[in-house]
């Protein structure tokens, strides 16, 4: 790892000011992606601004019909929160599938979303649940947030503060994990929301995406059978040593069926 200037943020404003005052800074939330990237010398920031001491950015609450999770909440907190387990159990389940116990004690929802790894778990929940991402300056709808591989609608220096999830009628998540990394080779989150069914897929493509054909099928018949015959195209899906595009396309349907069964 190349050396960098370590800066600890004492507040949201302090974080932004330290970021903008540096030549080429990176924010660090839990560091579960940033530190491995730096250790491999894939990046060489001048400064790392540590958000880990911002306790105001931790916490989970229910606000009206929304579940609000602050950005620095770790996966373990989401996985074990009574509020999450009672309001959106599929989200608590998803948080418990990320990495391993030690990673879940450090990794944060804000960090995961800002990084937008093609195989990250949280983006599928945010997109399927039609959540809203709150930043230090605005709110961004889930449909507008994820813009491409490791890319989001966030501006340079903009910080996620919380995510609000409208509580759905029902929701389910199922993923097929890579046995070594535990990242989903394909993960599907399904939700029966006030705006109709939403289906979001992670791991399969360059960026999380919705499956309109499945959503239409579920609108008239919420059941695993409804999506069983919806075949996804392999065009543009990820190809690597773990799975071919065709295999991933097939997995989308299989995982969607299981996610719906899990949702009930």
């Amino acid at each position, binding site marked *: 790892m190349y050396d960098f200037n370590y800066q600890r943020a004492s507040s949201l404003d302090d974080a932004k000011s330290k970021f903008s005052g540096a030549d080429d800074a990176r924010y660090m939330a839990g560091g579960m992606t940033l530190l491995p990237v730096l250790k491999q010398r894939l990046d060489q920031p001048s400064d790392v601004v540590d958000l880990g001491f911002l306790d105001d950015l931790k916490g989970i609450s229910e606000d009206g019909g929304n579940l609000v999770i602050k950005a620095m909440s770790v996966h373990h907190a989401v996985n074990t929160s009574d509020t999450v387990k009672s309001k959106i159990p599929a989200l608590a389940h998803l948080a418990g599938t990320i990495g*391993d*116990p030690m990673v879940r004690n450090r990794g944060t929802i804000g960090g995961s979303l800002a990084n937008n790894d093609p195989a990250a778990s949280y983006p599928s929940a945010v997109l399927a649940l039609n959540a809203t991402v709150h930043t230090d300056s605005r709110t961004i709808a889930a449909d507008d947030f994820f813009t491409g591989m490791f890319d989001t609608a966030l501006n340079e220096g903009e910080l996620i503060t919380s995510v609000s999830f409208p509580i759905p009628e029902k929701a389910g998540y199922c993923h097929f994990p890579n046995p070594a990394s535990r990242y989903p080779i394909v993960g599907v989150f399904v939700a029966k929301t006030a705006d109709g069914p939403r289906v979001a897929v992670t791991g399969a493509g360059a960026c999380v995406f919705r499956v309109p054909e499945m959503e239409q099928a579920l609108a008239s018949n919420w059941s695993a059978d409804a999506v069983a015959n919806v075949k996804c195209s392999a065009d543009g899906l990820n190809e690597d040593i773990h799975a071919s595009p065709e295999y991933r396309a097939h997995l989308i349907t299989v995982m969607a069926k299981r996610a719906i069964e899990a949702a009930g």
Partner: protein
Amino acid sequence: MPQIRMTVNGKEVSGEVEGRTLLVQFLRDHLGLTGTHVGCDTTQCGACTVHVNGRAMKSCTLLAAHADGADVTTIEGLADGDTLHPMQEAFREHHALQCGFCTPGMVMSAIGLVKDNPKMSEKDVRHGLEGNICRCTGYHNIVEAILDAQTKMGA
């Protein structure tokens, strides 16, 4: 360079580190606590697991500066004099190690698992150990030891 101060195994320690200094480097190189191992150095094998403010974490993927002010427990801080921690004793009883390289991380992770769920099934233990790799493939006895220790820790 960041000046840091933390409690390690009940003792106040301090030092000056580089921004990039990892917690495991601070523990091993600055404090001489070499019981915490670096296996893969890529957040996968869990040999570097320590407890930070009571939670199990991989110290190869945590900046020392980030642990400033924290309460850290390493494998050296478990035994009470010559009396082993029940988890260490269970590992000894069940011969839950072959080469021993992964053992410090396994023990630290296992204590964290029992703390979170004192009524784990064998399946829970195996699932909970996903972040710890034993290349001697000695998982069977490790799982046995953790289940045994869980009973003794709850007694």
